């Protein structure tokens, strides 16, 4: 191996490492999108119960979650076409959020329709699932504040286990706003800054 080839190899390896680092900069859109979607669902369920509206909450959720999954699948296909090379960290993040999505879908639809889990247990269980997802994501991003969000989800999950009234839905809606949508915006602005910096 001569000097030039060795240097080319090093430049290539460095580029791969830098690309890998850049691609794990989260743009936060997924967090914002899902957070708002679930917030809308929770608020419509809460208002439906409080004002005794004749809406079927199951169908609201089927439409919202169905829309969420369709959007996520299409967005990921598009992203994959644009950038077919996936980094290890990127793959792990996809697996974290897909598995969390499947876990939450089973809890929300299968567990409740089977009658084995009461509606009031769904929000705390979903909070605990989100705690796992945020903890692992925090390690992947190497970000302490993302890891701390998991503590927020777990503590709110524990609290919601003891709230047996309709107001639990409202608590979950606010958690969704504070621990998902707002962090999503933080990711979004950070990624904008990162893109601007890499263009300079």
């Amino acid at each position, binding site marked *: 191996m001569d000097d030039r080839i060795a240097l080319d190899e090093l430049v290539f390896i460095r580029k791969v490492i830098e690309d890998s680092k850049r691609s794990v900069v989260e743009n936060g859109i997924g967090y914002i999108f899902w957070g708002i979607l679930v917030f809308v669902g929770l608020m419509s369920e809460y208002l439906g119960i409080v004002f005794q509206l004749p809406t079927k909450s199951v169908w609201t959720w089927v439409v919202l979650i169905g829309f969420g999954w369709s959007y996520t699948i299409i967005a990921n296909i598009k992203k994959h076409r644009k950038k077919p090379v996936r980094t290890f960290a990127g793959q792990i993040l996809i697996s974290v959020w897909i598995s969390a999505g499947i876990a939450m879908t089973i809890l929300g639809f299968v567990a409740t329709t089977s009658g084995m*889990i009461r509606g009031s247990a769904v929000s705390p269980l979903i909070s605990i699932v989100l705690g796992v997802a945020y903890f692992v994501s925090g390690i992947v991003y190497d970000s302490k504040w993302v890891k701390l969000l998991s503590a927020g989800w777990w503590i709110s999950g524990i609290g919601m286990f003891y709230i047996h009234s309709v107001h639990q839905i409202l608590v979950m809606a606010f958690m969704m706003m504070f621990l998902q949508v707002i962090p999503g915006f933080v990711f979004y602005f950070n990624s904008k800054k990162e893109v601007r910096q890499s263009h300079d």
Partner: protein
Amino acid sequence: MNEKIAMDELQFIKKIIEDSKASIVYNGKDYIVWGSLVTLGLLLDYSAYVFKLNINFILFWSVIIGLGWIFSFFSYKKRKIECTPKTFAGKILGGVWLATGTAMTIVGFIGIPSGAVPGQSVSAVLSIFLGMAFMIAGFIHNETWMKYLSLGWWIGAVYMFYFPGIHTIFVMALMLLCFQVIPGTYFYQKYKKEVKKNHE
């Protein structure tokens, strides 16, 4: 930069990659110990129901889960003393199981006593969390069969939700054996082979 420095750099990078690969050769002991402990707990739980034994279930499971956590703690300490290099993949894997363990402990020790999660659906709920962990771990180990194990956990959870009863304790014990202890043994054998190869 002359040829020697470039070669040194390349060798250093190669070594890091190889170290990273070697330390992700997982010994599977956690899978075997946790899987066996919980299987044993479930079988004793089942016997207590059948023979109508007067057992304090909270205390009983506290001992089982406590033993598991003590094992995990000491095995973490041992790895630290042995100065096993901490790779990115290893860190994520540790995080996945720490988060899943925390989540399952919350469900078992807070969800059930709070009355939100009925005792008979706890196996199904925990299967959902295990499915999540196995899917992420499958991506980390880059083992397709492991990703399929998560499907096994989720299908098992759906089955237990729709067909509840005392037999679900057996189903859960069987799933632990097939989807956790056996894969753990596979990892252990693979690890032994790898260690032997390194010594040769």
